[in-house]
């Protein structure tokens, strides 16, 4: 018993999932119920890849919880005028008043029909942090599920600041929403702008440190010497956005300068589409009867279906034969006596022009460096070797390629992701120990198990839930404002798909609609949580104006910020250390979160809610109750919408669907179901168990880190190098769009190539900016890039003093980084205030000189330029978001854009 008068000390289990590289487990120490210290959770050391540690962001949670700037009561706007210059006149109200106001709107929207006259959902929601808000929003997903159609197309960085091409093509090719080297085994990593030491989370940092300790070689190829570059054996200062040329040159060396036998020929023949014969129109030559793609069998010297047993498929040479070719919309060509080459032979020809000498001039990297890089890649590939995993031999290929933001975003992303995945295939290093791995699936189902998502599809490849493009199936009326199902087949149609559509189109549409798409409308109700698009998206003024035009915005608000400045209702929810929630951990998740264990962890409140803040689950339940959706809401929870299905073969902890359950009841049921799931129904400990231990796991087989065994088990092939399916759907999509008169997506349609050609991306950007803004690009001599910061990324913590203080120790924060020689030419010195102008906007900041950046490149870390968020607004830190235009011309076929723009610098004098 605690003696009266003695402070009561306690330690509470929780997790940090502020960034996509989580979750990580932690302990919160409290005195008299006041959280004052974050610690690693030492008891998780044996099951967590990073020994139960959390990164610097987690340590910001104490200030985040106790921040005096927190909004502590529900508030409602009194000034109907919205805009940056308007005082919203927020007045405190009771929860009852706030919820009634929201539910009145919701009930009206429901009464008017769930979709508006344009066919768009009347209710919209935006969440930031790459999906991480779901692990803080309790049962709100169950409310959204109960509600029905929700428009989630108003992005706050999705598509333009993520790893978009990797997400989409990665899922298509190897169930890889996120891609990672098999860091525990890899020997050589080629890292094109990937910044794992800043954004790979605790697991990434720990694993790469271990890898360096055992002598891994990482070559960092990027225009500035990032944190990851600093931690690499070699830095190659490539010209911005020329990565595809470098990677194509690597392919050239592997296919034209290195003996063929050094490649993994067996893998290419058995596990890829390399042997598939290509017909004259670019589609596979098929067996007329079975319609299966044909290969040339060297054993029998004849063309056979790709899945014919006991064959030796040819990879090269030309063959004369007959067959059927199937094009878009099932158009067929019957061929007789034509010459065909396997896809691999086409690949060899395709990369023939892309020599290192060709790439050198484009990338500003010596040809010898590129050649040497390719040579090291093949030298470290260990082609032919095996390793035992979980008692079974598997190929061992310890080489991998990582791609960073902006490298696999926007134009060029397709080329880079294709080349990266193909590089892995050439040495048999895709989804095998040591090689290049996917770590999670979001678009394919089930989302919590990559192996189970391996389902046979057409032509010997995995299936993929493409949005249909065939006549009669294509969705001409978008289901969301950014038209992801209409424009982007690869975005698929999972709960995550909206976030992977062309989110900036939703914003652009608010300013000016697109021809032949429905009239742009505003959502009747817009929910916002853990995101601040007015700061985090591009052309921030446009975003701000659009949001100001939304009729009813509900922000789950932590402090005032630039987005909730335009809100109608502010709802203070329990922050990270105050709310209760159970989440899944382990298995294989984002980035480097592939574990040897899997299970669940509890976020146990370390403190009572501050002020009138309420647990998100309570809010969700109230919304469901007041909108008459309680039964659907509870049913959704029972089905797993809150993270764990409450019933299984041997157990049933389902909630009574007609009752409004308390927060603790809901999570107690979830904990019991989690216990049962982990023990096949043998045990059913609830909330108290998780409160005592914090987490519960069972082993996760290491073999499941790799997709290869699942592919072999079903005799499936990775769909590389040839993209017949993409070629087909691209042509079908083009036909559909043209049928309704849409021609503004034609440039994007060109990207649907069977094998991507190099394109001058720098020129593409320059031309687009010159044409759109009628400027001379020479007046904007620098390329401006952005980089992630471990201290800030995804954290929503720009308003935390402690984070700012410690981030200041890392060079580059708080200003614009530039090369000293470039600065000298402009007469600029360290710390001088400058105006940075792009054709679309300006920002100001202090000059930070570093030798580790190209003279033609500037860098701004993170996302700032706040004008409302307390503390952050006083930092005078520049951000490239105000400078980066949202342009259709700079949007690729997946709907993504890249953090890249041309800018000029101008001295504005000290103290400005």
């Amino acid at each position: 018993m605690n003696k009266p008068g003695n402070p009561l000390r306690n330690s509470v289990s929780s997790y940090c999932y502020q960034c996509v590289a989580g979750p990580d487990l932690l302990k919160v120490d409290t005195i008299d119920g006041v959280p004052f210290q974050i610690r690693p959770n030492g008891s998780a050391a044996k099951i967590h890849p990073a020994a139960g540690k959390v990164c610097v962001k987690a340590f910001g949670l104490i200030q985040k919880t106790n921040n005096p700037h927190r909004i502590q009561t529900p508030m409602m706007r009194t000034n109907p005028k919205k805009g940056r210059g308007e005082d919203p006149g927020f007045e405190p109200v009771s929860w009852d008043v706030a919820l009634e106001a929201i539910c009145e709107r919701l009930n009206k929207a429901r009464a008017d029909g769930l979709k508006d006259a344009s066919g768009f959902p009347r209710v919209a929601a935006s969440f930031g942090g790459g999906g991480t808000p779901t692990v803080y929003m309790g049962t709100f997903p169950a409310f959204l599920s109960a509600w029905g159609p929700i428009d989630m197309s108003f992005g706050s960085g999705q598509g333009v600041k993520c790893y978009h091409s990797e997400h989409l093509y990665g899922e298509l090719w190897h169930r890889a929403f996120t891609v990672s080297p098999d860091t525990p085994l890899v020997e050589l990593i080629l890292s094109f702008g990937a910044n794992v030491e800043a954004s790979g989370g605790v697991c990434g940092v720990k694993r790469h440190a271990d890898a360096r300790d055992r002598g891994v070689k990482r070559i960092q190829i990027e225009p500035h010497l990032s944190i990851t570059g600093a931690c690499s054996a070699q830095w190659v200062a490539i010209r911005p956005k020329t990565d595809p040329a470098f990677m194509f040159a690597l392919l050239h060396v592997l296919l034209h300068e290195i003996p063929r036998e050094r490649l993994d020929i067996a893998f290419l023949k058995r596990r890829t589409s390399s042997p598939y014969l290509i017909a004259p129109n670019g589609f596979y030559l098929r067996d007329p009867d079975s319609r299966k793609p044909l290969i040339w069998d060297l054993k029998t010297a004849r063309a056979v279906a790709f899945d014919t047993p006991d064959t030796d498929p040819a990879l090269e040479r030309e063959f004369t034969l007959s067959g059927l070719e199937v094009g878009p919309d099932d158009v067929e060509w019957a061929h007789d006596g034509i010459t065909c080459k396997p896809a691999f032979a086409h690949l060899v020809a395709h990369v023939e022009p892309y020599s290192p000498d060709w790439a050198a001039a484009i990338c500003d990297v010596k040809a010898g460096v590129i050649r040497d890089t390719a040579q090291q890649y093949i030298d470290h590939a260990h082609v032919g070797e095996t390793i035992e995993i979980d008692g079974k031999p598997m190929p061992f290929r310890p080489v991998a390629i990582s791609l960073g933001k902006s490298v696999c975003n926007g134009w060029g992303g397709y080329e880079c992701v294709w080349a990266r995945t193909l590089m892995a295939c050439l040495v048999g290093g895709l989804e095998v120990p040591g090689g290049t791995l996917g770590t999670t699936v979001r678009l394919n189902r089930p989302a919590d198990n990559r192996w189970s998502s391996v389902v046979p599809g057409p032509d010997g490849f995995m299936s993929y839930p493409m949005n249909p493009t065939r006549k009669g199936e294509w969705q001409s009326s978008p289901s969301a404002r950014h038209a992801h199902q209409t424009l982007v087949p690869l975005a698929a149609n999972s709960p995550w798909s909206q976030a992977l559509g062309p989110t900036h189109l939703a914003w652009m549409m608010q300013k000016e609609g697109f021809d032949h798409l429905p009239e742009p409308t505003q959502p009747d109700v817009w929910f916002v949580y853990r995101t601040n698009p007015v700061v985090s998206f591009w052309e921030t003024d446009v975003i701000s104006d659009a949001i100001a035009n939304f009729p009813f915005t509900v922000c789950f608000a932590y402090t005032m910020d630039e987005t909730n400045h335009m809100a109608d209702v502010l709802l203070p929810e329990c922050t990270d250390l105050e709310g209760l929630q159970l989440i899944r951990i382990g298995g294989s998740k984002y980035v480097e979160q592939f574990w040897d264990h899997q299970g669940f962890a509890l976020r146990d409140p370390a403190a009572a809610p501050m002020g009138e803040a309420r647990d998100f689950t309570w809010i969700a339940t109230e919304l469901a109750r007041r909108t008459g959706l309680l039964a659907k809401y509870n049913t959704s929870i029972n089905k797993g919408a809150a993270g764990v299905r409450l019933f299984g073969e041997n157990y049933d902890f389902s909630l009574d669907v007609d009752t409004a359950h308390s927060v603790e009841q809901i999570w107690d049921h979830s904990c019991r179901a989690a216990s049962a799931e982990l023990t096949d129904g043998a045990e059913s400990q609830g909330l108290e168990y998780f409160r005592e231990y914090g987490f519960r796991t069972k082993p996760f087989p290491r073999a499941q880190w790799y997709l290869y065994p699942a592919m072999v088990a079903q005799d499936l092939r990775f769909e590389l190098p040839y993209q017949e399916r993409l070629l087909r759907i691209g042509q079908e999509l083009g036909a559909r769009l043209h049928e309704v008169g849409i021609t503004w997506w034609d440039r994007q349609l060109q990207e649907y190539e069977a094998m991507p050609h190099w394109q001058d991306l720098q020129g593409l950007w320059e031309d687009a900016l010159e044409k759109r803004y009628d400027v001379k690009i020479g007046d904007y001599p620098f390329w401006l890039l952005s980089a992630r910061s471990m201290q800030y990324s995804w954290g929503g913590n720009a308003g935390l003093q402690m984070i700012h203080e410690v981030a200041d120790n890392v060079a580059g924060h708080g200003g614009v980084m530039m090369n000293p020689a470039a600065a000298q030419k402009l007469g600029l010195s360290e710390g001088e205030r400058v105006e940075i102008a792009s054709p679309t906007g300006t920002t100001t900041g202090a000059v930070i000189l570093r030798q580790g950046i190209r003279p033609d490149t500037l860098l701004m870390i993170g996302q700032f330029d706040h004008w409302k968020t307390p503390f952050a607004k006083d930092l005078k830190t520049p951000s490239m978001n105000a400078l980066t235009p949202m342009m259709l011309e700079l949007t690729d076929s997946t709907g993504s854009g890249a953090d890249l723009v041309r800018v000029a610098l101008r001295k504005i004098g000290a103290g400005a």
Partner: protein
Amino acid sequence: MTRYAIVADLNRCVGCQTCTAACKHANATAPGIQWRKVLDFEVGEYPDVTRAFLPVGCMHCDDPPCMDVCPTGATRKRDDGIVTIDYDICIGCAYCAVSCPYQARFRVDQPAAAYGGKAMRHEALREDPARIGVAQKCTFCVERIDAGCAQGLVPGVDGAATPACVNSCIAGALHMGDTDDPDSNVSVLLRENRHFRMHEDLGTGPGTYYLYDKKIGDDTAGDTAGEPVPMIAEPAGLAAVSPRLQTNWDWRAAANFVLGGTGAGLFVATVLVAMSTHVAWWAAFIALGLVAVGLSCVWLEIGRPWRFLNVYLNPKSSWMSREAVAALPFFGFGGLYLLWPGALVGLAAAASGLVFAYCQGRILRAAKGIPAWRQAGIVPLIVVTGLAEGAGIFTVMAVVAGYEFMLLSTIGSGLMALIALRAMLWQAYRGALGEAGAPAGALKALDGGFLNLSGRVQAVVLAVAVAGLLSPPVLALAGLLVLLTGWGFKYRLITGAAFNQGFAINRMPARGAGKSGPGVKPGWTVS
């Protein structure tokens, strides 16, 4: 024996600042105060650039200069190597802060809240009034170590007995353990890896080791960590790790050196002149007054002024304590001299004054954190400039008082001798400083302005003094110039040239399969 130390593996460190934040949590340090942090170094010129991160904090030195200089004995070193501070006796003089070559010590004079105004609830909960106005630094989380050891745990192995920074390190870069135990985690690391210690040439025996490369067998190739670190006078982008002007001692500390030296010198001059003529009691009075005002200025600067008597607690090793001790006979005999101006009393007071001035020189010499102060030549220079300033001000007063010409000539001759001696000592000091290397900013400050001790300026002063042998007013001018140039030098020395040691990285680490490379000592130059 036990010797706890930190080993930082630079190949692993990613500069994430998790240790910085964990330390802030564990120790509830004030906003802006970082007992531990990670520095960001860059070496080379584009495109041949490498970058590395260097965790720093209190090095818990074998021979901690902060402990020796502490006038109160508040800073102590435990048998296990941990350097501690007793907040209850520290007077907050910040002498330890200027003596630490690692910028590891801080003084917070007012409670501070992260967002200003009212403290947040966790801040209020952990406010420690004992830490206000006194020196503070990394404690090595000594309470955790002691509590852990009491439970039979092993520091550096068991988390509950290990400092928060080490426990939190996500890269596994920070290690802590007993270097006296050959089988400890840190001993093994040190055996298997090449390593350096920062500023090892200063002889403090820092307890933080930096691993920068693997050691393979007896291979010593590339093991150049012990060699001088390359200096760069004006490195672009390395301001955060380059020497900075210390801010612990300001004009108030400078006033003590300025007035203390002059007062002591004036008293000596007064006593010596009194052997040829009557006692200039007014000069003796002014001399005592100058020293008193100087000491009062220091009193105004210390963080805990009402503990000032604690300054006498460590005469065993602290020159600040000794200065305070020397002040006692100086004021005692000096006061007596005013009442009873006998030669013996005067000489005793003058000798005490000389000791006082000598102590001032030694105070600076012992401040290992300030390269411009710790030069050996600073001691005679401080003593002699004090004597010269005293002679100078006495000369001015003698002219004003109408001393006879012959006596003035004698005084003038003595003044010229002191000018010459001071100039020679300056040259020796400045030459040695430039040869050894110093912060570029320190050298620039010492050489700047016109009220300094440079040969050029002192030649002018000497010429004026020579001319003064013919003209008392000119002699007075010479005395005044001696005074002002001495004051200018000392004020500049304390407030303008007092750049701290800065940080250095002896070798850039090998990253994975990469190679280690030369390090850098930014902001330093030889000249």
